[in-house]
């Protein structure tokens, strides 16, 4: 897939990360000891995209669509079943642990839950110095200095250094998480739902912080979220996932103004708008039913069971991700 053409501000040569036909499958078994039945959850089912230096790619979808698994496979927290992940031209999947180490410095992650992603028994100083200790040759005083400046970058006072995570609010903890990811000056940060556990008034603070840090340090983000409006404010391009597949990918503005895949359209129309007049007059597409189990992905288009426009062809043939009139990529037989 070559999504590079869709965005002019990033040249294709700047590709930082390339993901090709990524598949992650989890075997599950059920039944008794003698009649064990092996089945496979197709969590990520052939996903391809790339991220350019300094770009934010938003990855949206509902729970179980495989967006987090994709993020974890890229950082190799999960080893994918098949596919290719290359970072600056190096194939990440062929590297062993020690060879991977230099890339740990370049790809960092921010997790969703600010309460469980910080060790409660470590002070903020030790949390922040851990990546520096294992990934850089910095001396102790250098680390001290770096940590103090990191806290400043995320707008926390350096006097917090000797405190423990429980003394902080959710928003402050997420700032610490971001500072930890930032500590080794990564080129790519995979942020998995970084604001969804936060209160509305705090969400905006963290989104702005991520925005400012990107302006300053120029790293790329893979921004994973279920909230379309949060993704819109931060992303240059957006990929929409459904049942382990990317169903639409395009430049943010185009994708939001003119979504081509029926699932993207339904997803957009389901997001409530905080304006009663618009919200009450708007035409909404309410999808019937629920996402099918990733244990039994229906044949043909994965969305066929809920799609209001599905025709016979959709139940037989898997639609490829192809370029549509808006310049975005969509996997729908009917999209123009």
């Amino acid at each position, binding site marked *: 897939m070559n999504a590079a053409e869709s965005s002019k501000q990033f040249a294709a040569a700047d590709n930082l990360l390339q993901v090709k036909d990524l598949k992650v499958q989890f075997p599950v078994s059920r039944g008794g000891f003698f009649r064990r039945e092996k089945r496979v959850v197709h969590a990520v089912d052939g996903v391809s995209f790339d991220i350019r230096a300094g770009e934010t790619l938003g990855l949206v979808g509902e729970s179980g669509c495989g967006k987090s698994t994709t993020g974890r496979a890229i950082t190799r927290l999960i080893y994918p079943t098949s596919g290719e992940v290359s970072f600056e031209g190096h194939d990440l999947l062929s590297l062993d642990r020690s060879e991977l180490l230099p890339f740990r410095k370049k790809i960092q992650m921010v997790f969703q839950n600010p309460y469980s992603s910080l060790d409660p028994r470590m002070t903020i100083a030790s949390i922040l110095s851990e990546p520096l200790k294992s990934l850089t040759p910095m001396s102790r005083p250098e680390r001290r200095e770096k940590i103090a400046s990191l806290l400043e970058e995320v707008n926390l006072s350096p006097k917090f250094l000797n405190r423990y995570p429980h003394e902080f*609010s959710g928003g402050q903890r997420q700032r610490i998480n971001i500072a930890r990811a930032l500590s080794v000056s990564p080129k790519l940060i995979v942020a998995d739902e970084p604001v969804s556990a936060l209160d*509305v008034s705090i969400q905006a603070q963290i989104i702005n912080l991520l925005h400012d840090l990107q302006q300053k340090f120029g790293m790329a983000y893979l921004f994973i979220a279920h909230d379309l*409006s949060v993704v819109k404010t931060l992303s240059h391009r957006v990929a929409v996932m459904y049942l382990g597949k990317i169903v639409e990918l395009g430049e943010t503005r185009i994708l939001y103004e003119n979504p081509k895949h029926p699932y993207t359209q339904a997803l957009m129309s389901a997001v409530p708008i905080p*304006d009663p007049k618009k919200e009450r007059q708007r035409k909404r597409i*309410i*999808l019937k039913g*629920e996402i099918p189990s990733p244990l039994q992905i229906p044949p043909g288009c994965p969305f066929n069971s809920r799609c209001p426009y599905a025709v016979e062809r959709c139940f037989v043939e898997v639609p490829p991700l192809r370029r549509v009139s808006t310049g975005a990529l969509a996997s729908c037989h009917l999209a123009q």
Partner: protein
Amino acid sequence: MKKSLLQVSDLSVQFKTDQGTVRAVDHVSFDLNEGEVLGIVGESGSGKSVTCLTIMGLLPMPPAKVTSGEIRFQGNDLLKIPESKLEDIRGKDISMIFQDPFTSLNPYLKISTQMMEVLATHSKLSAKESRKRCLEVLEQLGVSEAEMRFNSYPHQLSGGLKQRIMIGMSILLSPKILIADEPTTALDVTIQAQILDLLREINLKSGTSIILITHDLGVVAGLCDRVQVMYGGRLAERGNYDDIFYRTRHPYTRGLMESIPSLEVEPGTRLKPIPGSPPDLTQLGDFCAFSPRCPRAQEICRTVRPLEAVDNPGHSYECYFPVGQGSPPASRPNRAASMSSSESSEVHLS
């Protein structure tokens, strides 16, 4: 003019903890009219859930303690009537849907057992009739293969389906009031749209009044007739949806609206967050709870809690220096327009 169904006046609820007394709900009043949807909006710790749990009589006391106010429903003060009488009302006249459909059903019992228990407790229907009524409600809620779902265990159902079952249980007895505490927060957007549609339908078809607790102004915009915005256990602003969205007066309401990333925001724009963090409820004194984060706060905001000021009947706010049209009612006489004497004396005491 719609008839008032439930009146909450001057309600205060406190919790005694090791860190001090938490003033979870602090002199809050509102009423609910017949057939309307009232939205209670606020962030975590704003007191919205505690308010509703108090109405339902579901707060463990101690540690919770109601220190002032009354909750009037059909001539009774729900805070004073005996538990046995409250049990008659709870589940029958007033029922509740909880936020988390994953933990609010008993995993050991079949859906049928749990649903029929409601009817066994509150009605004289036979087992056969109960079963029929349950299936009827499930079909009304658009549960496909209702019979099969009815005989399943909760873990066999998806989140959206569990929430439908919870709603089903809560409307089995056609309650007058349905309290929905963040009913869609744990669900995906497309499922959220389905559930909100369902609540709208219940309200329109059966005339059930709904109190919808949420942190999402978008959900409020689509569903609510009137809105109560809470902050730090207190009222920030209340009014009908027009008042709240288009004639906003309280700086917190305004801040909340400006900080939401909406689908209408241009990509790449910076948001306008509310600075600071939500208040520590043990440290709240008799001053405006929002003053530490408020761009308009002045000396008086940090020393004396504002009284409820009234714009027009039904639209009021607790603020000295409100935003929006008209001159700010900054002086004291303007603020006391509709206050009960108990509250004003409380302010003077401080």
